[in-house]
């Protein structure tokens, strides 16, 4: 392999963001098989930041989500720079696909808004739960540290 090729990795055509809910994997895999994208690169939800960076860099021609809620989750957590993937003058022009069948066709805005609201509420509740757990652990560590300081200095 030449140096030029090593510096310029081949553009992988499709990225797949694996679903947050495991029961959606079958739907996703069926969709990928239909499109002939079974060899597409998979990304776990924990790697949303990496997927976002690579989509922004234009390394993929398309990105597939099981359901729109997974794409929304990326946006809520700050890793979904959709404008840079898809639209705008300097965007990477990435095709955004959803495996679930209930997307597309005529836009049902009230239904869309309900889905967005539900998705945000779920994400927000998860975020608060993680914050409470982290805050409790850090508070416990801080109290232990304070006790050590008082006990040792006293």
């Amino acid at each position: 392999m030449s140096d030029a090729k090593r510096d310029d990795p081949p553009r992988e055509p499709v990225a797949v963001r694996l679903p947050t809910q495991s029961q959606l994997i079958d739907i996703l895999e069926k969709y990928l098989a239909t499109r002939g994208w079974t060899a597409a690169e998979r990304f776990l939800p924990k790697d949303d930041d990496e997927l976002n960076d690579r989509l922004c860099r234009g390394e993929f021609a398309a990105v597939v989500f099981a359901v729109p809620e997974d794409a929304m989750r990326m946006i809520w957590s700050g890793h979904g720079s959709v404008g840079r993937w898809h639209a705008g003058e300097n965007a990477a022009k990435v095709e955004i696909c959803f495996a679930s069948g209930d997307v597309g066709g005529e836009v049902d805005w009230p239904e869309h808004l309900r889905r967005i609201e539900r998705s945000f509420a779920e994400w927000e509740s998860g975020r608060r739960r993680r914050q409470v757990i982290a805050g409790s652990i850090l508070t416990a560590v801080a109290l232990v540290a304070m006790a050590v300081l008082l006990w040792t200095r006293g």
Partner: protein
Amino acid sequence: MTALLLLAMAPVAMWLVQSALLAANGLPVRWRLDAGDAPAGVRTGGRIATQVILLGILIGYPLLRGRSPVEYYGSLLPTAEIGDFSIGAAAASLFLCVLFLAWIAADLLRVEVHHSRRKWIRRLALLPATALFGAFVEEFLFRGVVMADVMGSPTLSRGGPWIAIAVSTLVFTGAHYVRAVKRYWTLFGHLALGILLSVAFLRTRSLWLPAGLHAGGILLIMGVRPFVRYRGPAWLVGASIFPFAGVAGIVGLSIMTAYVWTHR
């Protein structure tokens, strides 16, 4: 001066090893110590060489001074002062917990697991050993060898303790940037941390307090790392493994330095 000469040879030796490993892999020599994108063999070989070189300095310095390493480092860790280790570890932990709690509350730090379960469990299991090893190796080197050498030098010690603090801090900071790193703005955080650790050694004449501060810091920073993402601004909260490098961290380190200076 012996310590400074020994330490100045370390990057040269590391570069020679890196060049030899690159050449063995058919790759061109690099002027910088930078094996980030090199094959795994070059990276691992470089890491092993670094540890061996540091170990060589730690063992070689007391031997060059005509003392056994065990006796030399033992004299810097008096049993009577062992309580300083827990004080240092507790102070560093408390300081970082306060920072992390404030940033989580302000949504400047978001709680998100970004490693696989297996990876973060392995990291947490190894964390106490990592923290102790990292803290003691660095304290032996930068305070036990470099700073003690300057303090014992008739020429350099004439300028008062400031010279020893400055030299130890600069060497400590420089050592973290010898290899190519992602961020250079963290330099001021390393300077503030270097001053705190040097003052802790100067005021106690033992390595327990700086080692405790250092170990507590590593424990908290590396323990929290797999579970959080920094949302910035970096100048305020730091980033990645450098929460002490933002303005809030540097102010906190300065307060701790002032406390150690006036109360020890």
